[in-house]
């Protein structure tokens, strides 16, 4: 903890923090308020901090121009499936690497860890060809399978392993002595204790999938298969110029729900991230 500050220092600090907060807060604020304005007002300067006559016209057009509801569902279900899948894969592997002794453990851990050095950007060309040969291009399979088993899940496994190592083992040992099998010990004792780490991994994984952009534009070609980030860039006029009001309305709908969840659960969010294996 730091020392007590004088009144003047406090005022200066608040001033600095307020100024620094502008580029973090203003873009989101501006995105949401502008989406409620007619196009002409979006360009007005100084910008109205609140729309003078708010309207939802742009929001209606989002759904007319793209199958946006479908695209929203696509992004949502892909992110959820990837999150659940990653949690399962990484909790199992992380637990085994931390708690169970088996031959070749260290070598196998290094093999898995090597995946961290191989982001999907490096392997996107062969991945495309693999999925092409399997007839899975323009399906959601690549967007689901690659993150569940690729670099993001390797990071998750690493975080889970670090967490399980830091967990006191007595409870598990007691359960084992009482005759609980390995899986039951994992499922009933270790997993419930690892909620903070699972939460952090879930948040990371969800956001990663939600933000994915290269993979969707490589693998998907029909609008009803698109995910949100890809859909956002499709709101252009006949000359290829962006339709700002519609684009900002779609962007707001993409960003706001996650932001609301974050504000409600920000304590778990931030502290979960800070207090996992990532701490170093």
């Amino acid at each position, binding site marked *: 903890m730091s020392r007590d500050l004088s009144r003047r220092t406090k005022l200066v600090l608040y001033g600095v923090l307020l100024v620094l907060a502008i580029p973090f807060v203003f873009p*989101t604020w501006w995105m949401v308020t502008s989406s409620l304005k007619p196009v002409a007002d979006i360009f007005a300067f100084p910008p109205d901090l609140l729309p003078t006559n708010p309207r939802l016209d742009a929001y209606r057009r989002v759904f007319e121009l793209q199958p946006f509801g479908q695209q929203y569902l696509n992004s949502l279900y892909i992110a959820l499936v990837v999150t659940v899948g990653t949690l399962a894969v990484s909790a199992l592997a992380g637990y085994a690497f931390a708690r169970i002794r088996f031959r070749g453990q260290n070598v196998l851990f290094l093999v898995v860890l090597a995946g961290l050095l191989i982001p999907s950007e490096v392997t996107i060309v062969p991945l495309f060809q693999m999925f092409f040969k399997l007839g899975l291009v323009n399906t959601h399979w690549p967007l689901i399978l690659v993150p569940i*088993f690729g670099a993001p899940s390797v990071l998750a496994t690493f975080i889970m392993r670090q967490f399980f190592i830091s967990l006191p083992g007595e409870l598990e040992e007691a359960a084992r002595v009482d005759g609980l099998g390995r899986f039951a010990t994992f499922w009933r004792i270790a997993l419930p204790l690892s909620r903070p780490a699972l939460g952090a991994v879930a948040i990371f994984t969800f*956001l990663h999938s939600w933000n994915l952009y290269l993979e969707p534009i490589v693998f998907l070609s029909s609008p009803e298969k698109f995910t949100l980030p890809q859909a956002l860039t499709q709101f252009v006029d006949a000359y290829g110029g962006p339709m700002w009001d519609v684009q900002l309305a779609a962007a707001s709908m993409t960003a706001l729900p996650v932001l609301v969840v974050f504000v409600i659960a920000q304590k778990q969010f931030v502290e979960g991230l800070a207090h996992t294996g990532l701490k170093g």
Partner: protein
Amino acid sequence: MTQTDTRVGPATAGPAPGRARPFWTTRRRDQLTGYLFITPQLLGSAVFVILPLVLVVWYSLHEWNVLAGTFDFVGTDNYQALADDPNLGAVLRATGLFSVGLVVLNLGLALLLAVLLNQKLRGTILFRTLFFSPVVVSLVAWTIVWGFLLQDNGGLNSLLDTVGIDGPNWLRGEGTAMVSVIVVQVFKNVGLNMVLFLAALQGVPAELYEAAQVDGASRLRQFWRITVPLISPTIMLTSIITVVGSLQVFAQIAVLTQGGPGTSTTVLVYYLYQQAFQFHHFGYGATLSIVLFAIVLALTVLQWQMRKRWVFHES
């Protein structure tokens, strides 16, 4: 249910009659469970990480034509093309500029914010939430908004106009485009490193500062001599994550500048995407992938070496 003593087998076998040791000892069963637990991760890595990495080398020796359906061995042609590629220098330069700029700005700002939030001040939780919020905003949404703000007639220039400055066309100028994509990305993700730094700062024992104060060390001196060494493992970790992340930048470039003007913001991943998926030079795309992998590998090894020398203490 089952007795799991080292000498007694599972319930299915029942208590072993006589002296014969059952095959399924606890140790053996544990081994098997261990392998079963890591099987999904291991198989998945093999199919979706290791195999593609091997294939990327194989494909770099071939030319694949999707339309004609041909897949021809071309030897080292793609590597020759790489050596002759007039764009490669500019692409590597843009990649390096982006990474260096991003890492320096991101870590610097993250540390500054963390130090500010670590003061005894009311409302730091609110500011922490504000600084962190862009992390959870959809990447493309965030980028689109900044794309608007940075337009020639966008918000930033209107703001500069009011104080009499004629702002440049940020995303269309050679130098300003690169600065713009870096800054947009810094504001997006700096909250993540800030939170990690904050956790590290809170772990520095207060007694150390008190002792230093008694010795008359200035605040700046305390920062460099106490804080920085003690949080160096976190600095190391965040810099590795940030460097590798910076090499993966794609969406921001695709949305804001499309690699332009000229090739000034064509970073390696964007160039790879153009070559493979816009011009359908898959073999050459694979070759560029190997370059990307080599850079990631080299930087990680380098940072690992630095870690040994430079990091003050390991927890």
